[in-house]
């Protein structure tokens, strides 16, 4: 077990380092010069002297390798550098933005898992009733209707028609818990739709597969109540693969939140990145991409490790 753990975490760390380095160096290949943008954008005509001075101030005139070592050294100490545009420490701004994105993703993940798993189990147990086709239909819609369609649908129903919820924006839970909740409902629902479909489909097929196995017949034939057969025996086995997929969903939700943050003007990490990409703010781009990759790679590693804890075949395989 220990060997597996070390191996898995080590490979995750190497992968993260590789991704981080690729991003670090590739940022310098981005067309557009941050010094030019600071000195007034593409229409301005600063002298080469001015450009050179700004580059020196920003530390961009040093050899790229020196900058890389400086960045990596800062990273080890938890320092992600300073924004080229605002001059503020990236860590400060990024932690605020990351928190806001998590405030969106965590409720969406809870919502999609709770609804998806419940509906999936019911669909599998009631294959011949209306429940199963209903759930399959919702699943297909969840896979097919993009989030930027769900968003406007929700806005037109709950904002334009019922006038219940705001069409977008963000209020911190510290300022006003009620305002935060009201602004959260629509984006979290939009973000939860696709992962809910995945959870439903996975749970349904996984429970169905388990229901056909011999141990279920044994449990039933010894007179166990159906609720106990499903609740105690089937679910425990069926939710294992569902766990993996749900873990992957967290990564997928980070990706999905790019669009959700844009649609609902939720000032999270992704809007931060889009803005920084537009301004060629290298340290922010490097930091956000690194954090996103770390979350994605980290969840994958976590799932594998959890899986190995539950299923001994994997750690000895």
């Amino acid at each position: 077990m220990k060997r597996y753990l070390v191996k898995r975490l080590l490979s995750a760390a190497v992968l993260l380092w590789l991704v981080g380095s690729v991003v670090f160096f590739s940022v310098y290949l981005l067309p557009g010069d941050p010094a030019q943008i600071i000195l007034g954008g593409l229409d301005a005509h600063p002298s080469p002297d001015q450009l050179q001075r700004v580059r020196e101030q920003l530390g961009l005139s040093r050899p790229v390798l020196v900058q890389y070592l400086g960045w990596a050294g800062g990273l080890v100490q938890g320092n992600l550098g300073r924004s080229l545009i605002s001059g503020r420490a990236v860590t400060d701004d990024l932690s605020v933005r990351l928190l806001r994105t998590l405030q969106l993703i965590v409720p969406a993940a809870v919502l999609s898992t709770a609804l998806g798993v419940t509906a999936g189990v019911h669909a599998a147990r009631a294959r011949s009733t209306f429940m199963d086709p209903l759930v399959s239909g919702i699943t297909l819609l969840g896979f097919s209707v993009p989030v930027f369609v769900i968003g406007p649908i929700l806005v037109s129903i709950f904002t334009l028609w019922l006038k219940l919820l705001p069409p977008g924006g963000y209020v911190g839970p510290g300022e006003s818990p009620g305002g935060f909740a009201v602004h959260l409902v629509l984006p979290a629902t939009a973000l939860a739709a696709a992962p809910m479909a995945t959870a439903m489909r996975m749970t349904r097929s996984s429970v169905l597969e388990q229901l056909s196995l011999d141990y279920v017949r044994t449990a039933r034939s010894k007179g166990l109540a159906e609720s106990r057969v499903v609740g105690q025996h089937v679910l425990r086995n069926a939710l294992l693969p569902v766990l993996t997929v749900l873990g992957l969903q967290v990564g997928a939700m980070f990706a999905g939140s790019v669009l959700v943050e844009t649609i609902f003007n939720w000032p999270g990490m992704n809007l931060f990145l889009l803005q920084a990409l537009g301004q060629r703010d290298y340290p922010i781009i490097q930091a956000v991409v690194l954090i996103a990759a770390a979350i994605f790679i980290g969840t994958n590693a976590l799932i594998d490790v959890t899986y190995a804890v539950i299923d001994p075949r994997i750690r000895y395989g």
Partner: protein
Amino acid sequence: MPSSTLASGTASAPAGWAGRRRVRRLQLLVPLAVVGGVAALAAFAPLLTPYGAETIDPLLRMALPSPAHLLGTDEFGRDILSRVAYGARITLLVSVASIGLAVCVGTLLGSAAAFFGGAIDLLVMRIADGLLSFPPILLAIYVITFLGPSVVNVILVIALLYIPRFARVAHAATLSVRETEYVQAAQAQGARPARILRRAVLPNIAAPLFVQASLGLGHAILLESGLSFLGLGAPPPAPSWGRMIEQSSRFMTLSVWPVVWPASIVSGTVLAFNLLGDALRDWLDPRLRGSV
């Protein structure tokens, strides 16, 4: 994979064999018809409507559907049917070209890696893992920022995202046929590796790749319209479903129709490709029938 004949025999509705076959045929034909319809829309766009996709009629903004403008007009007075039809050209071109590219390159890399094993295998599959360890739309946004938004670049980016996925499918499938007798027989006859891959391996791993490609076409449409929603797809004023939704949704307080049409056609097309993928899987791999 446990035998599921008993389970599906007892658990599914007593629809009857003939009835179920009819349903199965419909499951293949209906999505095919939808995809065919969208393809026809794209192909015959100039014949379907007298307006260009970018023709502006300032006097007729946000018009409701009428005989002159079957789907109405948008906030600039552009004919929505024309924009949806010309948009279908971009979207279908992007998804077919990108997935086609990804299938070719991914299959080649994945099956070659599995077939030869060793260092090539390790290198190819680790690079694939690396690319997959990244949230797809973030990678797409990042790469598009480098290359600039254009149709060709969107095709390249989506292909880049899907190459590792097809490589994985091809890799797994090739591993399972590599040790079969017909491959060994071909080797014993002294066939060159390229020939074995082409004649013995590829035909036998095609089924899962087909299924994956059909689902991939749907995903590619989602990605393409998502990127154009973010303003990173085909540059304006080219009509693109994603950007139509983005621009018109700002005017939803005035009229929702300019959003409804592109939204429905994106969702319907993706739904059709997903259904097609499921139907193909059932058809090509009878073992999975009823389980998904």
